[in-house]
């Protein structure tokens, strides 16, 4: 097993037509070691989210190669990519993206259920994950009955409950106030330090950047030295 969690090699992503190509990423090569907490920073339109999506297998690079936890994504089918996301990645979105018809504990359980973990074990692990993020009293609340900060903590619990190789967070603080962002970042840090989760977050929030060990700055789709 290699020591890096994520590696991209010369990744380019072009949108639009051949006549008028729009370069979202231009030859991005980076390595994120296992256990790192890294932020991808840069102004709007710099390619932060695109890079995160390519690493997460949500879109394929036009050129280049992405490796996540020893798996080269380029050669995988859509179905195999889905499996990689299920077993090796956790996602935290800016809009929380919890399942509205499930309670907090059921939302966290959901990933384990997809993985085929038995009912008793997944319930225990889901509750444990929620407790770890200070949500002891909210097991049975549905997303609509929780604050933004609480929903985002449930989202982190869901992302880490299956012990993924890497957690990808796309502008996770965009909908949170500074106090809640601070609290949220402490929980991310807790996931990173106590659970050993590798975290890669796209952000332009200095508060979030302050919690990460390393910044990768993107400008016009390229890593700025």
């Amino acid at each position, binding site marked *: 097993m290699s020591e890096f969690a994520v590696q991209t090699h010369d990744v380019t992503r072009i949108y639009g037509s051949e006549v008028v190509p729009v370069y979202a990423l231009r030859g991005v090569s980076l390595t994120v070691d296992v256990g790192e907490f890294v932020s991808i920073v840069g102004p709007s339109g710099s390619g932060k989210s695109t890079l995160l999506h390519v690493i997460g297998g949500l879109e394929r690079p036009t050129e280049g190669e992405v490796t996540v936890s020893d798996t080269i994504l380029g050669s995988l089918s859509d179905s195999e990519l889905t499996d990689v996301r299920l077993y090796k990645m956790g996602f935290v979105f800016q809009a929380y*993206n919890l399942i509205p018809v499930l309670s907090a504990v059921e939302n966290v359980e959901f990933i384990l*259920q997809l993985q085929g973990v038995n009912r008793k074990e997944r319930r225990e692990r889901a509750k444990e994950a929620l407790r770890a993020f200070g949500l002891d009293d909210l097991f049975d609340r549905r997303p609509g009955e929780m604050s933004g900060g609480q929903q985002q903590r449930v989202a982190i619990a869901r992302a880490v409950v299956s012990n993924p190789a890497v957690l990808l967070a796309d502008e996770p603080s965009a909908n949170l106030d500074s106090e809640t962002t601070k609290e949220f970042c402490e929980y991310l840090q807790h996931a990173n330090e106590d659970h050993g989760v590798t975290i890669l977050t796209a952000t332009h929030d200095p508060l979030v950047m302050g919690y990460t060990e390393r910044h990768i700055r993107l400008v016009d789709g390229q890593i700025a030295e």
Partner: protein
Amino acid sequence: MRLVFQLAIRNIWRQRRRNGLVLFAIVFSIGGVFVMNSLARGMEHDFLRFSIENLRGHVKILDAKQLDEPGFRHLIPHDTNWSVLARPDIEAWTPRLRSPAVIMSERETRGVEIVGIDPTREKHSFIKDLNIDGQALTDASDQHLLIGRSLAEELKTGLGRRLVVLINGPDDNAIETGFRILGVFESTNRNYEDAYVLTGLSSLQTLAGVDGFTGVSVYLHGLSQIPEVQESLAMELPNLLVASWADLDPFTGEMHRFIGFTVYILIVVFLGTLVFGLINALVTAVLVRIKEFGMLRVVGMKSHLIVLQVVIECVIIMLLALVIGLVTGLLIVLWLGDGIDLTAFAAGVEAFNMGTRMVPHLVVEDFVILGIASVILGLIASYFPARRIIKTPILQSLREG
């Protein structure tokens, strides 16, 4: 599977107003088809019953020449080997003697058909259901006459009065005799009251000077037995014509087949129309949740599970609507159990060999076909929104909604 089912149930409840409207539309359609089919089946049943009960039977044995020249000239010999009718699939058989006749009262004259019957064997024709004012015929040798209410009114005669009947004998000699009216009958079909006068079989044989029959009606346990019995009897009685009710009454036979076919057309038209509305409603319902489905795909839910979830949601709504629709339809049919009164259109419906009450008739096969068609419809309707979801790129799904 349990996970998908759980999500499907909760999502149905979550969008309960929209799904309620969809459910109502399906219930309305299924209930409507059910009631319409039951009424159509009632018509079909009426056609069939009137044709078989109208002195034909499921199968009729007669001399082939009777069809062109009804009367006493072409009879079935009485010493025909009737033991061939002793079969388990034959419920009953009844010999009759019929002839065109002229009937005269003191005031009026009418053309009718005189029918010689053995009243003890008339358990399956319209004769068993006659409402008789006066007395019924007692046996085959009864020399009295039963006439219909409508005919009695036209002849301006009544119970106990005498009528003169004029028939053509087997040698074309005119035979005239007087009958006393023993009873005046009423029937559910006024055509019978106008067309037939009834007397004892052997009494009419004696009057005409014959000992045979114009026809033998054979009654079976069901329609499906007709082809086999018809073929078998035709081989056993090679000198006689063995015809089914539909052979003798092709108009009603065609109507019977047409209505049977119409029932399926109704199912196809109603449910076919419904499917477009259903697809539209489901696509809209799914588009509202497209971001949610995108998120499910991001976190690792495979496409086939997404499709399964949409299909299960649709099929649950369909099955629920099917049950409610069928129960509603059944309640309406039970409410219409006594039939819809068509007396105002009596002349028209009787001309079509129908009674003046349209009574719905339930056929189990229709329940099953409607049920299967609805579930297939649900599957077809769910395919389009499900396809829309999995064809939409994940990132586009996440941006929408």
